[in-house]
């Protein structure tokens, strides 16, 4: 009995928390003399090394927000096998940096390796003029070593740096290493033979002065020269954190291991189409939901209304999960969600039909209910396993290269899979608790 009461309160609590998460970030209340704006707080938790931060807005995919999806093929012909992974990472980092400069918020840059094919996947929400964007992204990185003009003083600015003949071409590889004395992370540079000579000259004439490294005409780091370096191997020290050192090394590699890239896939969705799609799907979803709710109430009466209550709770928890995970919603994802709503009442229908049968053979209402839930469970479990397996294959969580990694397919599989799992919870635990609560009060009467 105590366990059941606990469950009831757990469900009530879960629903309220979900409702709070589901609310839009600002709510205006205008009622008689009350005029207030409520602000829903965002989540920002930090427990030691564990950070959990969510702004609790629904993330929209390119097809809903409008924007551009690009796939680039990287030409690895000039890169040694063991450097290919680093080269691809540097290219991705480089694109991310340029996209940020371009002012695109929430851009996504991913790398993908398929056999011997190296690719970059770029998603630019809100960007429609792609020719410019592609030109900007598609350029290979240009790394330059610059020195101060001889007459520059300590108060020199960035414009006082002049290019030398040393460029990214002369740099073979950059890596993060640890200083054997202090144990602090440092960034190492290894030059080609040609580069070593040039670097030796530059360090020779700039003793005690800074030498700047520019990537795409923007400074990445400006270390001081401590001594002339003739070996072609240098280290940049500084008070780096490991993260900073890694980032610097990746940026230097973008110049050292340049990979030309070309577009092999491009998808461009106009913003108006996206907004229309959202409006249409929301309307379709609401009407579909209403039909399901009315149908359940009309066919199963009181039981159906209680199942509808479960369905509404299901909807609220699902939406809250989308915001918490966060799930990037695409149009197929929305379809997956709506499909799962249609399927969510399935377990209830199975249970109710069982109850009817038990009551037909003369069992009491309460007993029929418990038997119905117990006997229907096997069917419910079996029936959903296949759908979950299929969702797993479509979602491809381990990024197996022999399976699809398309965002649309994954979006669908994720929302459908989540929906099926959650509907098992709401269809059985939530509805049963609601039913028990209501039957108890009925029995007392």
């Amino acid at each position: 009995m105590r366990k059941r009461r606990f469950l009831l309160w757990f469900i009530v609590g879960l629903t309220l928390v979900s409702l709070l998460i589901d609310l839009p970030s600002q709510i205006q209340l205008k009622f008689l003399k009350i005029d207030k704006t409520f602000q829903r707080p965002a989540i920002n938790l930090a427990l030691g090394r564990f950070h959990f931060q969510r702004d609790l807005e629904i993330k929209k995919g390119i097809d809903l927000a409008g924007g551009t999806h690009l796939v680039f093929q990287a030409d690895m012909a000039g890169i040694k096998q063991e450097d290919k992974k680093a080269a691809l990472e540097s290219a991705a980092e480089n694109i991310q940096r340029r996209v940020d400069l371009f002012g695109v918020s929430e851009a996504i840059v991913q790398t993908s390796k398929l056999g011997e094919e190296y690719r970059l996947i770029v998603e630019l929400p809100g960007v429609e003029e792609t020719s410019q964007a592609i030109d900007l992204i598609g350029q290979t990185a240009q790394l330059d070593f610059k020195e101060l003009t001889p007459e520059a003083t300590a108060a020199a600015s960035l414009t006082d740096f002049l290019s030398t003949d040393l460029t990214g071409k002369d740099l073979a590889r950059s890596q993060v290493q640890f200083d054997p004395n202090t144990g602090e992370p440092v960034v190492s540079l290894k030059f080609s033979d040609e580069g070593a000579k040039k670097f030796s000259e530059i360090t020779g004439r700039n003793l005690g002065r800074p030498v700047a490294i520019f990537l795409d005409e923007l400074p990445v780091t400006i270390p001081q020269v401590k001594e002339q370096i003739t070996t072609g191997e240098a280290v940049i020290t500084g008070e780096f954190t490991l993260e900073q050192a890694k980032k610097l090394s990746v940026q230097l590699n973008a110049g050292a291991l340049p990979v030309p890239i070309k577009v092999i896939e491009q998808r461009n969705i106009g913003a108006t189409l996206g907004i229309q799609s959202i409006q249409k799907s929301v309307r379709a979803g609401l009407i579909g939901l209403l039909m399901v709710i009315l149908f359940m109430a009309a066919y199963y009466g009181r039981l159906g209304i209680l199942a509808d209550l479960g369905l509404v709770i299901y909807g609220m928890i699902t939406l809250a999960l989308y915001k918490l995970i966060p799930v990037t919603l695409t149009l197929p994802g929305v379809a997956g969600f709506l499909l799962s709503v249609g399927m969510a009442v399935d377990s209830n229908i199975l249970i109710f039909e069982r109850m009817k049968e038990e009551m037909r053979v003369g069992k009491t209402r309460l007993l029929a209910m418990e038997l119905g839930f117990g006997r229907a469970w096997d069917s419910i479990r079996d029936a959903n396993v296949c759908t979950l397996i299929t969702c797993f294959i479509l979602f491809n969580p381990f990024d197996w290269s022999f399976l699809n990694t398309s965002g649309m397919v994954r979006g669908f599989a994720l929302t459908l899979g989540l929906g099926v799992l959650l509907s098992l919870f709401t269809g059985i635990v939530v509805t049963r608790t609601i039913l028990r609560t209501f039957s108890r009060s009925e029995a007392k009467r």
Partner: protein
Amino acid sequence: MNFMKFKWLYFVISALVLIPGIVSLVDYGLRPAIDFTGGTLLELRFEKEINMSEYGEIKKLIEEKDFEVSSVQSSGEEAILLRLKPITKDDAATIKTVLAQNFEEMPEEVRFETVGPTLGKELLTKTLMAIVLAAGFILAYVAWRFKNAKFGICAILAMFHDSFILLGSFSLMGHFWGVEVNTLFVTAVLTILSLSVHDTVVVYDRIRESQRLLPDVPFEQLANKTVTETLPRNINNSLTIIFMLLALLLLGGETIRWFVVAFLIGTIAGTYSSTFTAVPLLVVWEQLKAKKV
């Protein structure tokens, strides 16, 4: 009710739906979208309505600029959908200017998609892999769940029944209305495979339960009892899914229209087959076995 009396009628209905689809599959096949073949999809919207009769002219205008157009279709009221060999975004701008001169208005670019040919081929192999894996897992599950060849094989026959109805109808729609098969369609097929097994499992579970409880009752009578018991559930459950799909089809966006149609066909076929294909198959199996003995 004596449902099984009409079992041959159910098979005839299935055959009537299946045969045209399969013939079409063999003859015309499916129309692959640019996802699989590589190519460009360009959707343009005009202020004024463009007549079907003008499509030929649009095609000619674009081909004069040396772009290969494979089809011009309407998409919504004022929009047209062009399919071409892969072009770049700059080429798309050229096409827009050419059309703007002719129709005295600059069209709005609603959608532009280009897929390189290598990517298309790769997707095809990945898709086949997904189908093989999903079907394999589902087969393994059914085999493990029933530990009985009769139930397993009949469930799988019902699954094939549904997938061939789905594939066949898309082949027919592709031939007559130019409907294409893309990645999302494959997703729909895979999901329908699992939904089909889902419904059949529920019905078969009931048959086996009845067999345990009433070992002396003849099989055909058991089958009738089960169908009477499970039919309301099957229809009600499908109805709720169909409500959702219908709302999406009638009110939802253009982009996922055929995705939803695929689900609709699959769901209806699945509901029908779980009762009127899967169960009669079992009955026929039992009868054949009885004759042999």
